[in-house]
């Protein structure tokens, strides 16, 4: 799977996460790209969601990669990061959840949904998820 395919997958995963009940926002992990490049041995790709998305810009800036379809004055498109190495595929994302939902349940629902989608990609090795709830509230 090349970078462009991974980037499209990241966009799809971001959309899947965003439409999970109880999720109010999905965003990339700040510093994600740089941290992954340092930490993961045998790294083959780091991407953020969106056409032409670049992992470093998506992860470090939090607004790069995805969002090309969004108006400049509107909310950013949901962004997830994907790190693909020779040994594993790690999806990283931050979410905010509704204060009317159960945070832990929403997190598990998002994980189920994304892992289910990743399971359909035989090229991705050992897919796993790193998800954080970074906010709770109506917006």
């Amino acid at each position, binding site marked *: 799977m090349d970078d462009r395919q991974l980037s499209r997958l990241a966009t799809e995963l971001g959309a899947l996460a965003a439409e999970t009940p109880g999720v109010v926002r999905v965003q990339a992990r700040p510093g994600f790209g740089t941290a992954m490049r340092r930490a993961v041995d045998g790294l083959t790709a780091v991407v953020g969601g969106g056409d032409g998305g670049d992992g470093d810009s998506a992860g470090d800036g939090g607004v790069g990669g995805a969002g090309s379809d969004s108006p400049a004055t509107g909310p950013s498109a949901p962004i997830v990061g994907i790190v693909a190495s020779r040994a594993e595929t790690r999806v990283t994302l931050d979410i905010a959840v509704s204060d009317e939902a159960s945070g832990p349940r929403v997190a598990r629902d998002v994980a189920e949904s994304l892992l289910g989608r990743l399971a359909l990609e035989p090229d991705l090795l050992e897919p796993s998820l790193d998800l954080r*709830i970074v906010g*709770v509230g109506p917006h």
Partner: protein
Amino acid sequence: MSDDPTRSSGYDGDESGPTRASSDPAETTPSTAGADATADALAQGLDPDRAVAAGDAVTTADAEAELDAAVDAAPDDGVSLERIADYLDEGRQPYDPLIEDDPSALAQLNALRRLRGVSDQLLSDEVAATPAPAPSWIADVMSRVRLESRSGREIPLTSTHERTTLHITEGAVRGLIREAGDAVDGALVISCAIVGDVAQPDAIVTVDVAISALYGVAVQPLADEVRLAVVRHLEQQTELVVEGVDVTVRDVHQLDDEHDGGL
């Protein structure tokens, strides 16, 4: 835990559990602190009348002292509070992704919105005619919000997949605590802290919440209501094993639009 008469604590999974709040009317009826006294207290992060009592819980005092020191020492990074205040003034238009997409900035915006809501309410109630606290009151609270809204430690959540990790950030939980307390009529959260090794699953923690009470509101019921609100929110949004929620009433607030610290 403290014997501070203005401190309400205790949580063992039973919301009707015991409270340390005093039933003595002389102690639970808030009194008005003068502007000078309030300023001195806030400068130290403590109300002078409560400082001694609040200091008898070593762990809590340490946490509060660390927070106070951190507020003073924290670099002014991220989106400025002035920019957040201006954005709120403009009705959050045009959309600013640097604020709306940043958990820390968004938490500050929400806290500022709640503080302003209380200020407006007080004006309409004509409470502002009474002595006001130090001009820096809201600014002081906002500086704590700014610090507390940082990500902090990662608090684990149960995952059904072995290699998948789920967390909620400490900043998100502190924001949750603050929102729960601010939602109680007559209460404003000054600071909050989670004491314990939250990074370890099933670790037992305590939560310390310092609030300001609206002038004229009975302190004990207010503290109890804040405690229950915090417990409810924590149960819903986290898997923390909360041994107790200690609510300390630090001061009594009376605000007007000239005492908003410029925010």
